[in-house]
């Protein structure tokens, strides 16, 4: 078990190291000079621009040798310094990101957890009989096949524009400042519904289908068969099958995180929900690679932590990992 964890941890550390390196590397070997972009946006007088240009090069530490820049990058990282944003100059990247994070948590955590539970229950339900399977699971297939943004667009269009019952842009009303007040919380909730639903539904479909397939395999497993020969009621057998089918679904959750991040990203774009996903898009469109790096790092860290959490849960629920055996499926 401790071996199991040591191994996992090692992989995570390695991953983090690589991720950070990639993260640092990519922008630097891509065409285009960020400072030029900054100047371009500053519409300065030509005569002054020259001075400012060299000034910025120094300010962003782009005038030192490349290896030096790499070292500085790590060093800064451990001081929680993600650099300065170009797009929102001179705001520090970390500050911008921290402003966005709460909205991601607000949106993603419930969406992921609820869809996972609901989806699994639903899948198990669908696998109950051939009839149910043929009538109910198709819904699952359609949902998981739906592009996040498209579902988002549909929802925004139907409820926001045609029916005009729900707001479909921003995290709260433009007429409000964030305060701890009922009206604000209500507004927050109102704006949260549509993005949440579109995320929830697509994921829900995925989990439902996954569970449906898993449980069918489990019902064919030897232990199910043995219980049958001992005349155990369907109910008991299903319960065991469900529980065992949940395990791969937990790992599935870990594997899905990357995709989920992507989904969140486009959903936030559709509903201009001010989370990290939205930031990433802006960073890309404004070639703010310091911000982009920051966001990416944040996502990485988030995903890694989530993975770790999931591993722990897995160990808690799957005896095989606890008895020194690898729980990987």
């Amino acid at each position: 078990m401790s071996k199991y964890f040591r191994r996992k941890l090692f992989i995570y550390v390695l991953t983090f190291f690589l991720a950070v390196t990639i993260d640092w590397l990519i922008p630097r070997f891509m065409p285009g000079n960020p400072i030029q972009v900054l100047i371009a946006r500053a519409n300065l007088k030509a005569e002054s621009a020259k001075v400012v240009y060299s000034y910025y090069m120094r300010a962003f530490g782009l005038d030192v040798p490349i290896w030096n820049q790499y070292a500085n990058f790590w060093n800064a990282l451990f001081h929680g310094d993600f650099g300065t944003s170009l797009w929102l100059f001179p705001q520090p990247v970390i500050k911008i990101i921290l402003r966005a994070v709460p909205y991601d948590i607000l949106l993603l955590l419930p969406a992921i957890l609820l869809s996972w539970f609901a989806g699994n229950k639903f899948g198990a339900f669908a696998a109950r009989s051939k009839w149910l399977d043929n009538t109910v699971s198709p819904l699952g297939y359609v949902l998981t096949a739906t592009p996040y943004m498209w579902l988002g667009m549909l929802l925004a269009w139907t409820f926001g524009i045609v029916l005009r019952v729900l707001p479909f842009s921003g995290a709260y009303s433009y007429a409000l400042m964030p305060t701890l007040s009922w009206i604000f919380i209500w507004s927050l909730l109102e704006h949260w519904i549509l993005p949440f639903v579109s995320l929830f539904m697509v994921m829900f479909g995925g989990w439902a289908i996954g569970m449906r397939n898993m449980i069918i395999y489990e019902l064919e497993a030897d232990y199910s068969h043995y219980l049958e020969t001992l005349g155990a009621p369907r109910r008991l057998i299903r319960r065991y099958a469900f529980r065992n089918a949940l395990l791969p679904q937990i790992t599935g959750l870990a594997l899905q995180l990357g995709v989920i991040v992507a989904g969140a990203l486009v959903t936030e774009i559709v509903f201009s929900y001010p989370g990290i996903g939205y930031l990433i898009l802006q960073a890309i469109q404004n070639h703010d690679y310091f911000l982009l790096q920051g966001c990416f790092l944040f996502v990485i860290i988030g995903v890694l932590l989530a993975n770790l959490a999931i591993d722990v849960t897995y160990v808690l629920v799957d005896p095989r990992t606890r008895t020194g055996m690898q729980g990987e499926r």
Partner: protein
Amino acid sequence: MWSRTRLVLCMLLAVSVILGLTGGLVLGQAFPRNETLYTGGKQWGPVSNWNPFMAGNQAMGTIGLCYETLFLYDPLTDQFIPWLAESGKWLSSTVYELKVRQGVKWSDGQPLTAADVKFTFDLGKTAALNITSLWDWLDNIVQVGDYYLEFHFKQALYQEWANNLYNIAIVPQHIWASRNATTVSTGANENPIGSGPYLFFAVDQVKMVWVRNDNWWAKTALGKSVAPKYIVDLVNTSNENSLGLVLQGQEDLNNNYLPGISTLLLGGYALHTYFPGAPYHLAANTAWLDINLQKKPMGDVNFRKALAYAINVADIVSRDYGNMVQAANATGLLPTWDKYVDQAVINSLGTSYDPVKAKQTLTAAGYKDVNGDGFVEAPDGSKIALKIIVPNGWSDWMAAIQIISSNAQAVGINVQPNYPDFNGYLDARLNGTFDLAIDNQQQISNTPWSYYHFIFYDKLADIPSTQGGNYGRYNNPTAFALVSQLDKVPTSDLAGMKAVISQIQTIQLTDLPIIPLWYNGMWAQMSTAYWTGWPSSADGDAHYLPVTWNGYWNMTSILMLCNLTAK
């Protein structure tokens, strides 16, 4: 079962947290709609700074609402309106006298004096600022008393100076003096102290809120006061979003180019634009075609002429922009500069859409289709395949270059549209690796000099770092000389300006270093749902610029706010 208990636990936790939070909740309240002006169109991301020296991405209204300039400039009447300055005039060819208005106070109560003005200009010497270059030709500033200044120049560049007079915002010495060069040039300058009609109120990711400064100097000095108590400037999260806000009357003034809105201006919605009909908007800048003269065959003037004849600007205007823009005249000078246009030159040298002429010009110059692929080859027989670029995602420009390409192909020039990302586009132009590109980097101003200074920028070697313009690398000392000569003509000497400009235009239209296409509009969708008294072309209405972009408040947009009335 483990999962259910876990879920329940999560729920309980969440609920308890929320309850705990909302324990001492008050009933919050929104901005009163009838006292609030919602604007949008300047801010493409969360507000990052209030630094009047960071022209690029400072918060909407940093200059104009918060910090103010010595003069306002009204492009429509070509008048300078004394603002923080009471008056200013040239005492001699190299000495400019400035009287600072008395009784102006900073929002912290301190008086604004000549010292602040001198201090502001002097900052250009120590820090890397936009005004730094001013000191190449400004010698020194002499302050006499609290409200009188003399600017002594090594060499007076009248046009440029006039431009500075309404663009340089004055900052309070008692606050900025203690700041180091870095903070001055790149500090965020949170909670700014200015002299203007608005004070910083609040900011979050999607908006920034200004609140009225009720003891603004202009109340007593000019009897003017701004109507909205709050100005909420919304970040443009997406075209889509802005469009929605405008149509639902949530945004009172929007300064985005909103694709597809042209149809809506006519029908139904409580929308108001400066002109009742096409082009709906005033012209803000000229979109022209950059041509890389270093590359064959663009180096050949006949080829450029042929291209100019081939392009059907009218089609772009009607189809792409739904007539929300006007075709540019041959010189590319904005309508506000009409008086500088030498019609005679245009009549003799000007080009306009004429595919037949385009073909003739090509044939005459020896361009013919040798290999029969439908596209002409250069006289030396080499194939011609050109790319025209605009940044990916700039939807209206992308559509425009599709039209231009098909126009060119129609006369046998092989041009293909191409959409690199913005910095790819920027790179290509700065390093002169592009073939053809659309460009519009000169905003409306007090003098055509700024426009010519850009397209005839003379320090070709410095282009990558200075981004001074002339991306086609047009090299003609005579032209360059004329431009700097224009700079030295006093703004009062209209005849003198015209004389120089006419020579420049002759060169421009003979050599055709760029091809002017259309005038981008001062996109301004105004909603009459909550506010009235918007600027418009109609007589009796106020003829101000209804724009919140940087550098426009001080071009009379600020006066618009004094003219509004809540419904």
